[in-house]
């Protein structure tokens, strides 16, 4: 199966808002969000979000988060578009599990090193050499990536499968056509009490949680990615899980674009009345599940059909203003 033969089209929308605490203290939003293609519609499609650590020692974590999402989205998109055969699932799955986390971490370290070379940390005199910044043997003073520490969550939807990658806290939810909400990845017990696995940790690729879901008869109607500031804003877990089914209902009733228009208000309300942390929510929506309510919906799609039309105009395309 090649890209042109894909039977599903996807659209991404998303928003990141500065947390109430950061607004009061004058701190920047340390979350980031990015997707590819930039149009936010198509297949394959990649969405990435990141959460920079907020503690004082992570003084550049907002930059680390931005670099993380840009690298993850582009790297995974390049990986997917370079595949000649989407049906070779075992080969792709192996590459996703074994190669992608390492490649992502290495690319992030290189980007951090490059940024640091151009923008030295105050008091840091020594030169920066790419490649050894988070060696396990490096002391904290030698590990310059610490200042950029961030989590990363990335999800990619391709014609025959969905990829889930997560390093650190935050949530991925999937919602099926019957509005059943579930988590595609197992819980990481280390993510507790404001502590998280991180891109700046030694051998960070070992800490990734990776999921690979072939698309057969069942596929998610929605996939939601959220930084931890969002689930922490709800009184209990059920209140957060309800977000998934509520958004699917809203998309079916009023369309993707209407939901997109409301995201900033919803997330701002959540941080103000909830955790106070930065809040980021990215949503990948199966246009088939949107029920014809998206202006961007590719027409003529059936479960066994082929796409036969592109979005009507570039002005309809979602997302560019959120990045």
């Amino acid at each position, binding site marked *: 199966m090649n890209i042109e033969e894909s039977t599903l089209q996807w659209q991404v929308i998303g928003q990141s808002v500065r*947390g*109430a*605490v950061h607004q*009061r203290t004058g701190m920047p939003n340390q979350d980031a969000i990015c997707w590819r293609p930039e149009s936010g519609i198509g297949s394959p499609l990649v969405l990435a979000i990141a*959460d920079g*650590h*907020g*503690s*004082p*020692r*992570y003084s550049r974590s907002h930059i680390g988060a931005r670099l993380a999402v840009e690298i993850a989205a582009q790297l995974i998109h390049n990986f997917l578009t370079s595949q000649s055969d989407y049906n070779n699932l075992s080969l792709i799955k192996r590459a996703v599990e074994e190669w992608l986390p390492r490649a992502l971490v290495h690319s992030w370290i290189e980007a951090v090193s490059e940024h640091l070379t151009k923008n030295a940390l105050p008091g840091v005199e020594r030169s920066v050499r790419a490649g050894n910044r988070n060696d396990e043997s490096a002391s*904290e003073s030698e590990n310059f990536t*610490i200042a950029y*520490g961030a989590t990363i969550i990335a999800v990619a939807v391709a014609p025959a499968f969905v990829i889930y990658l997560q390093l650190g*806290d935050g949530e991925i939810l999937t919602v099926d056509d019957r509005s059943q909400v579930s988590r595609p990845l197992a819980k990481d017990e*280390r*993510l*507790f*009490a*404001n*502590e*998280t*696995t*991180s891109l*700046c*940790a*030694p051998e960070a690729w070992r800490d990734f949680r990776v999921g690979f879901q072939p698309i057969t008869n069942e596929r998610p109607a929605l996939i939601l990615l959220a930084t*931890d*500031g969002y*689930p*922490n*804003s*709800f*009184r*209990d877990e*059920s*209140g*957060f899980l*309800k*977000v998934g089914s*509520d*958004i699917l209902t*809203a998309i079916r009733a*009023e369309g993707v674009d*209407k*939901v997109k*228009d*409301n995201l900033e*208000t*919803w997330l701002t*309300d*959540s*941080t103000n*009345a*909830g*955790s*106070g*942390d930065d809040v980021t929510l990215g949503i990948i929506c199966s246009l088939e599940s949107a029920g014809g309510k998206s202006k961007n919906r590719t027409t003529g799609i059936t479960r066994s059909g082929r796409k036969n039309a592109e979005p009507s105009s570039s002005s309809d395309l979602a997302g560019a203003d959120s990045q």
Partner: protein
Amino acid sequence: MSMRPGGELATRPLHFIWIADCSGSMAVDGKIQSLNTAIKEAIPHMQEVADENPNAQVLVRAVKFSDGAQWHVSQPTDIVDFKWDDLTAGGVTAMGMALGIVADQLKIPPMTDRALPPVLVLISDGQPTDDFAGGLQALMNEPWGRKAVRIAIAIGEDADQEVLKKFIANPELKPLQANSPESLTKYIRWVSTAVLKSASSPASQSAAAAASGINVPIPVVPDSGGSSADDVW
């Protein structure tokens, strides 16, 4: 479209627990009165800190221990409504039992995993007379016990520093030595304000970095003022 998705929103709870020694020796030289006064005076300052960060709900409780241990303030009480009834001294030092009943309340549930790290403040002038190791083990067996910000204040020179160090379980943070009502007030104020403020931040950090034991940045500890003629304990 105005319906916000999801269930009820809520700020994150921050549990702050005083664990106070009420053994007979605390009646000597006015220690228990000084402790009561210091905590009472700290309440409005804690309320100010809570006001500055409305996204953290500061909930305060207190445990007292002497011949046994029991909750002095059993319900997690919003700092806005928190009042301090004076403690009285008498009996021995059942510190291990006190840690045990704190451990029971740090289980999930009743705690939630979305809470901010709790702050536990152990104040003692003596040596435990019960199974301290067992109580500490019970505390450390709970995820929130291990991840709590644990501060210890030693009142007077007879306080068992080694026991308090084991409670803190972090070589970078030593027990605070209060040898006078003034220094006790200073330390109570510090933990009630600076530590509380730090713990109420939603900032995260790498678990690898937190392996050293401190998952909340500990503010600079105030100078006790050193030994002086004012030292009474």
